[in-house]
């Protein structure tokens, strides 16, 4: 019998994704990712 729950879950996360894009989060991700993360490399 086909399950519906995976599609509900999928829809919820797709909505979150679109919401995040609408709120301008990709720009924040970009700004963070183009600078060297000193914490990541163990010196900050």
């Amino acid at each position, binding site marked *: 019998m086909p399950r519906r729950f995976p599609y509900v879950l*999928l829809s919820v*996360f797709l909505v979150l994704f679109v919401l*995040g894009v609408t709120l301008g989060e*990709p720009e*924040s*991700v970009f700004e963070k990712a*183009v600078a060297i993360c000193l914490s990541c490399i163990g*010196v900050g």
Partner: protein
Amino acid sequence: MNLRRWVQIAATLTTNAWWLTPFGGPVIYGGRLKAFCSPGLNCYSCPAAALSCPIGTLQFMFASLRPSLEVGKIHLGLYVLGFLGTIGALVGRMPCAWLCPFGLFQGLMYRIPSPKLAIPRQLYFLKYVFLALFVVLLPALVLDQFGYGQTWYCKYVCPAGTLEAGLPLLALKPSLRAMAGWLLAGKLSILALFLAWMVVSKRPFCRTSCPLGAFYSLFNRVSVLRLTYDEDKCVRCKACERHCPMGVAFYEAPNHQNCIRCLRCMLHSCRYGAIGYEIAGVRGPGMAESDGPFKDPLRP
């Protein structure tokens, strides 16, 4: 070399497609692709990284939550959470097997001849502690005087960051070496521990310490794609468990938290057609029983 290995290599090269640093280019890639997250764990400070690390990004979002809100930016990490959740809802932990560069690395390390050791199951829960504590709670709640948190997992644990970004950047930028201290020593120790562990155990980082794998694993039992188990056909030969890169006993727990959907058990290990798949409840065609000689996937 099997299809999965080719896909892993292609994904690793795509995620790390910036190769101009040694030839006078910027130390790390600064193009627009960095606004997108990689589906696997891949440090965005790696000189070759073309995409962002989803776990590093999530921590950053939580760590800068308060200052963002103060300037009117409602940045809650929904973009990354939505991206990871969409993948998880579709295929569960499948990216760990097919797309993660650090997963590929661990798989190759395990091929080094050595005595092999099992991993105590009690350690499996650690990855959830890292996810909840080091990725979400500590970055969001332990703040400095300016309201910023720290990227705790990146800073104090992540061996992938040390290997992919720390060592190459320290080699490429001598000025960074002067800043190295106890923190780097600690991270190098963690990396050394995992490097040794990878040789003797199957994917120890994925099974015990990866917060990204922990997140995807939450979807394994409910994702659109799931593996199916036919108890009537299973003879408990344990071939699936022996050949599983994550040491999962499929006959005990189909779609276990550590199942990374590499499909090795279904395609190669099980001779009796006991393992199949379903897509949102609709079963795929079952695997045929094989009377031929057993094909060991470790020795193609």
